[in-house]
């Protein structure tokens, strides 16, 4: 057949190359569908019929194509790389549907050797393949593909001797996509081999049940290794998000992660915010005894928290932490006072959220109401609350009052001023839903301000003489036009 020679001759020309890839792809898909790519019975050479010989030859060509395509994954042209990975995945699916060697013993014939070859090349230590790996995103949504990928990831990791940053990056890109379905999840999983239109009629032929226990074993072994790596800051952050979300509940010994999370939690800054969830899950579900958890949480309340990327996550978690009914009053008072103190420096969208949070706390802990209603205490010289004190027990919040909220009642934006109105009114009976406000932005506030209905449009009544010539002008002594 002409393909082989064509491939060699047109190696450097991308167009020809991509043409060749697509045509090869089409040919083999067709051959798979026709059933020509089937391993003939093993017999001595001279007994083979011509058609068997032809089949044998075809299989050899197919394998050759496969290896060539895998080599092309390291081609310098990005488009060629992408084309070959797509092509490989499609061939993989086709082969799975029409298995070459008739494995009657195995019911579900996933071409895992081919997949292993692909993965091994993708997770290389020399080339950053993250963009290529994103192309596998679609395939990873299929349960079967997901499982076999996990299996091979473990294999690859075991065989890998030297681990560098590129390898970690590549490995993580796939590891992030691994998702073990819940055991009692509804059986609505789609299968990679049946992803096409002929799914229904061949359903019973390919029965695949997700081997959850095995998958968990693989995942456990992978993470035990991964956790020992020296992670880059980016991967560190990613794993902090990934572990509590997808990994922790599949682990045999989740407490192995304790050191990891504790260290990260002590680092401070955004890393602490991220580690918070993991620590919480460990404390909450796996009975980790974590002294000074709230003390450290209190220390995270800094003005910079409002500008952190994971602000919403942080405050939702804090809402969870501060919903326990067994917290001492001084602690919650410290949090409430700290939040109101922070609100004086917070950007407008966060203030509303903070105020709602404070209201929720006041509703939850009735003995906190002394912060807004404390009639029997004489006038104070200074605020008993010390914002510099890192210990919530010593900051003196419970002797203070929420004067900050009273000041915020004079905020320039009516929305904020209204949210602070609770200070002089009765508290609402139902708690605010914090989820509505944690991700509030200036844009949303602006839109709401534009939509707001005002009955009359008031105007000024002193005629300006110029831009800086006005009746009660403040700017004229600082600014001029030119």
């Amino acid at each position: 057949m002409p393909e082989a020679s064509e491939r060699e001759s047109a190696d450097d020309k991308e167009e020809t190359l991509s043409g060749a890839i697509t045509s090869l792809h089409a040919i083999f898909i067709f051959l798979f569908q026709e059933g020509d790519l089937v391993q003939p019975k093993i017999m001595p050479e001279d007994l083979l019929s011509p058609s068997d010989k032809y089949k044998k030859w075809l299989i050899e060509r197919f394998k050759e194509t496969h290896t060539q395509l895998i080599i092309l994954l390291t081609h310098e042209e990005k488009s060629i790389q992408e084309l070959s990975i797509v092509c490989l995945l499609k061939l993989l699916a086709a082969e799975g549907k029409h298995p070459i060697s008739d494995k009657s013993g195995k019911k579900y014939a996933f071409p895992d050797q081919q997949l292993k070859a692909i993965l091994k090349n993708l997770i290389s230590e020399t080339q950053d393949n993250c963009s290529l790996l994103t192309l596998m995103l679609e395939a990873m949504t299929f349960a079967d593909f997901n499982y076999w990928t996990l299996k091979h990831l473990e294999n690859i990791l075991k065989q890998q001797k030297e681990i560098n940053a590129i390898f970690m990056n590549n490995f993580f890109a796939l590891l992030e996509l691994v998702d073990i379905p819940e055991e009692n999840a509804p059986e609505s999983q789609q299968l990679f081999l049946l992803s096409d239109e002929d799914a229904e009629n061949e359903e019973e032929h390919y029965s695949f049940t997700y081997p959850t226990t095995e998958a968990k074993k693989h995942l456990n072994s992978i993470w035990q290794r991964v956790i020992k790596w020296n992670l880059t800051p980016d991967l560190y952050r990613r794993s902090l998000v990934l572990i509590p979300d997808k990994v922790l509940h599949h682990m045999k010994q989740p407490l192995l992660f304790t050191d990891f999370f504790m260290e990260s939690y002590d680092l401070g800054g955004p890393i602490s915010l991220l580690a918070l969830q993991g620590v919480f899950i460990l404390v909450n579900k796996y009975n980790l005894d974590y002294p000074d958890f709230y003390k450290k949480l209190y220390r995270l309340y800094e003005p910079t928290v409002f500008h952190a990327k994971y602000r919403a996550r942080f405050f939702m978690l804090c809402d969870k932490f501060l919903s326990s009914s067994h917290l001492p009053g001084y602690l919650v008072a410290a949090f409430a006072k700290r939040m109101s103190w922070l609100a004086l420096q917070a950007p407008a969208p966060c203030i509303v959220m903070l105020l709602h949070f404070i209201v929720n706390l006041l509703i939850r802990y009735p003995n906190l109401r002394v912060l807004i209603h404390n009639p029997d205490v004489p006038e104070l010289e200074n605020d008993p609350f010390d914002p510099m004190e890192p210990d919530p027990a010593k900051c003196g919040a419970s002797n203070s009052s929420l004067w900050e909220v009273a000041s915020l009642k004079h905020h320039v934006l009516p929305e904020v001023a209204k949210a602070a109105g609770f200070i002089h009114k009765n508290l609402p009976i139902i708690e605010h839903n914090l989820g509505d406000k944690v991700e509030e932005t200036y844009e949303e506030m602006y839109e709401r301000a534009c939509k707001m209905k005002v009955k009359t449009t008031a105007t000024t009544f002193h005629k300006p003489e110029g831009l800086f010539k006005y009746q009660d002008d403040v700017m004229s002594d600082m600014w001029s036009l030119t």
Partner: protein
Amino acid sequence: MAKKGKFKPKGGEGRGGGGASKDKEKKLNPFEVHMNRIKYDVVGRKSKNDRGLPGVSRAKAIKKRERTLLQEYKVRHKSNVFIDRRIGENNATMDPEKKMLLRLAAVKKKQFSKKSLFNLNDEELTHGGVALTEGNFNDASAFSDDDDDMLDAQFVKDTHFGGDFLTKRKEEDESTKKDDDKPKSRKEWIEEIIAESKKKKAESKKEKEEQEEAVSKLNDDYQKFMSIMVGHAMTDADKEKSKKDGEFRDYDSLVRELGLERTGKAKAVNKMKTPEEIAKEKKTRLMALEADRIRRMKGEDVAEVKTKGFSADDLNDSFAPVEDNRFHVSYKDGKMLGHSTEEVGLQPDTGDTQSEESEDGSEIEADEDVAGEGSEKEEEDVEEEDVEEAEDSDNESDTYSDILHESSSEDEESEQVVEKNKSKSKKTSEKKRELMEAAKREIPYTFTIPQEYEAFWALIEERTPGEVNTIMERMVACHHPSLGGDNKAKCDTIFKYLLQTLHLICDTEGEIIMEGVHPMVYVDVLVPHMYEIVQLSAENSANAFMQVIEEKYADFNTRKSKRYPTADTLVFLKIAGLLFPASDYQHLVMTPLFVFMTHLLGQSQVSTQREVSAGLFVASVTLENVMASKRFIPELCNFLNGLLFISAKSKDKTKLPHQPPFKPVGPSSSLLELKEECQDYEPTKLKLTDVNEKAVEDVSEKFKVLVVHTCTKMLLKLCKCWSGLQAVRSIFNSTSVLLEALPASSYPAIVQESMSTLKEAIANLPKHLQPLAKQEGRPKALNMYEPAVETIFEGVKKRFGTKEQLERQKLLYKVKREAKGARREIQRDRAFLGRQKLQETLQSDAERKRKVNQIMSGLALQENEHKKMKKKK
């Protein structure tokens, strides 16, 4: 006929119609009847429950239970039910042959009844029981075309639904008895009704036709009459003439006299005001406006009625006619002078209203203007002054209108004549001169509003600021909304053009209006006119303004890392505060604008000199806007603190209080740090044009000092402004820390001084804090119930409350009763079942006993026989 109604069982009353009642009422067993005792016997009230038949009803209930509950009880352990639907199977009386026949017939019928379910051909579609054939269909539609066909109410009442049947029948009975003894049968009676309704329909139809005919005839007549009258229609000239002749006028005045009965009396007008009074009035007006502003600031609703007298809008209304008339008259003069053709087209042709307006309008004003215009032809300067005078007088518009009113009512005609003569003489003498002086730069007196912005730009291009001022003044004046027409819309258009102009001249490559003059100078010129237009139509201009702001905000928002915009945005932020009150609690324009400004201050990067200036500009606009209302903006304080932060000198900046967008590391963290001491500094002003300048690498030392100086000044103002807030010390906490970190000695003396004043001011902030306490609400009073005394008792207790409450009470009562009834039923069901079970046990026990006895007797017999056998042996 016999009297209808219920008979009381008491024997004495039922004497009259005994025979009829005996048929209906079963003879009751007196031992079965239970009489209910009535507590209060009310005469004339019918009672349903005065007697009952307990035995009978109990038997009935038991029977019913046997039919229903017992059946269910019997099949309680069975899961399926067999229903026999064979024809006649449940009918025991039918003989088997008939059953078979019937079944056969049913099968046949089923076979032949219908070929197909969807075969519609065999069926006939009907409407109201009438077949829908071609002919019928048309008839049917004719039935309901008109409500004329409706039968009249009386007829319906009489006949339909039995209507007044009973009473009618009685009357009829009597009458018919007289006529013929035989009463009408039902069929006859219905026929009569049908005949009647048909007759009525025919009559109404006929009537309608007649009416139509009459209308069409009238129409024809009118057409004919109009064709005759074509030649004799009244022209305007005729009207004029007749007015002069006084015929119409006399008639009109007569009508008025008759109507008002106030002949000969002059209209009362306000008295002329002294300057003191005028000043006082102005003061009160301003005070009222200020009071309104404060109320809005607090977020209270300003009562509509109150604003009406004093509001800014009203001001315009009262001063509107002044300006309008002035120009109106001048236009008239212009026309008479044959001065510009352009003007003719411009003026709204008001026709009759014109004369009216001139009656109301100002004569003095007109006079003044004529004089002014006369001199204009000679010297332009004079003219400009004049206009400026008029401009100045705007504020005193109230007084003007008063004066005008007085003067207008007096000798109006004579003055007009004088005025005309004057202008005519002037016209002849100056015509030559005017032609010679046909200067290019002359500004026309009136303007049309250009259709496109380019045309507007052409008008103001190449003009000095003063000229642009005049142009705008005139343009606004001759499209004053009170002139009527669509002038309000035109004013809005001018406003939009002004906004566009502002945008253009403040752009980074500002459009140059005139060589040698910086385009931004024109901003000062345009602002007062924008104010004027906003006063005229607040709503629309606010909307137009908002459109611009929205556009600017969208522009700002598209970037991910926020940057301070250039002057073409910032200038709008400033102007908004001039046009609309920034102190309002909520405002259509100002509230979104505040969000915009807080967003700018809160998230924009500060890494170049331009950005520092722009940020400072926004900050000072914000400061100005909150000064009056003393409201709090965290972002403003953060920004100023941030500027101090990047000027401060410190080894480890992360320890100083800071907030994004200011970073503690990187080149921008020490942007304003002084490299060397700077002592030669003169306080200058920051320039708006700086905002448009391109980023300069090095920030000059002077600029750094200036920024710090301005910052401290602004913070001082803020400090005073927010001193009323309870948490003010916490707010300025970080400011004082940063002030300590500033290298004070490197700054010139004047800056040092302002720093120390700021420190002092912060230290002197009110210290004492009263712990928060909610105001004790008034204790809630107990509900007072007045005794519900009914003056007239109507036998039933009256219930009070709203409709819903009463409805609810009724429903609750019903629910209660139903619940009671249901409970009782359930109790009886249980009792019934209990009895049933007991019966069953008794039965089975008896059975068992019988069997035991049987066995025992058998055994006894056996034993007996056995003994006998023994004995025998």
